[in-house]
């Protein structure tokens, strides 16, 4: 059960989350703008939505899977303190 969860969850670290947020926002705004310009320039509304579809698929490939790039800053937890025992160093 937990392996399925790991597979579907695709956990990334906090720095990765910030990066994903920034990438998706900038990419969506820019690609929307470009899509409009392409369609308007070619006078073809299909070109607009084809470009949007490609952009969305590309963005999904970059942002959704838990790429190693998004997991470069794992949270450093404090070591577990055992009562009575000597503190071990990590």
């Amino acid at each position, binding site marked *: *059960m937990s392996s*399925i*969860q790991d597979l*579907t*969850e695709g956990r990334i670290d906090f720095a990765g989350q910030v990066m994903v947020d920034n990438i998706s926002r900038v990419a969506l705004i820019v690609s929307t703008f470009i899509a409009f310009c392409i369609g308007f320039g070619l006078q073809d509304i299909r070109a607009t939505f084809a470009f949007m579809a490609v952009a969305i698929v590309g963005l999904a490939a970059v942002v959704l899977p838990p790429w190693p790039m998004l997991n470069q800053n794992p949270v450093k937890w404090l070591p577990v303190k055992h009562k009575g025992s000597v503190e071990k160093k990590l």
Partner: protein
Amino acid sequence: MLEELKAFKKLGVRHILLQILNFATVIASGLMIWKGLGVLTNSESPIVVVLSGSMEPAFYRGDILFLTNPSNQRYKTGDITVYKIPGAEIPIVHRVLETHDVSPKKQASTRSKSLVPHQRLLTKGDNNYVDDIELYQGLDWLERKHIVGKVRGFLPYVGYVTIAMNDFPQLKYALLGTLGLLALIQRE
């Protein structure tokens, strides 16, 4: 299960009431916007989803139409109207083929001085071969009181979700099922 109940108790009555209040606010504001739009456009349902193919290739099933029904404007030929005949269940989206403005002289004595022009209309679907007389359920002409509004704006495909839910009830259960599955395999 018991622990969940305990956690629920810990939240307290206030929190639950707040949740209910939030929920009610969402519903009330939705209704308010809908009714407000209705007042602004003078139409009983200012946004409709196309249900039939009789206006193809202009409108396909699932397209969303925005309507207005300005009370002091007359309808012209070529306008696309949404009308509802008393006794018929669903409103129909068709184009006006003929308008006949019955002279206001006769009205003034018999009718109250309303701004609504007195018109007789005949409509036809772009994709139909004949006009709509058969659809009027015995009426000879369409009148203003039957008309819900005229189509002003258009958004394709967006309303198809509602139609798909109606056409394929399995889809509803599939959707609910996947939602439930997601809730199960997701960690807290």
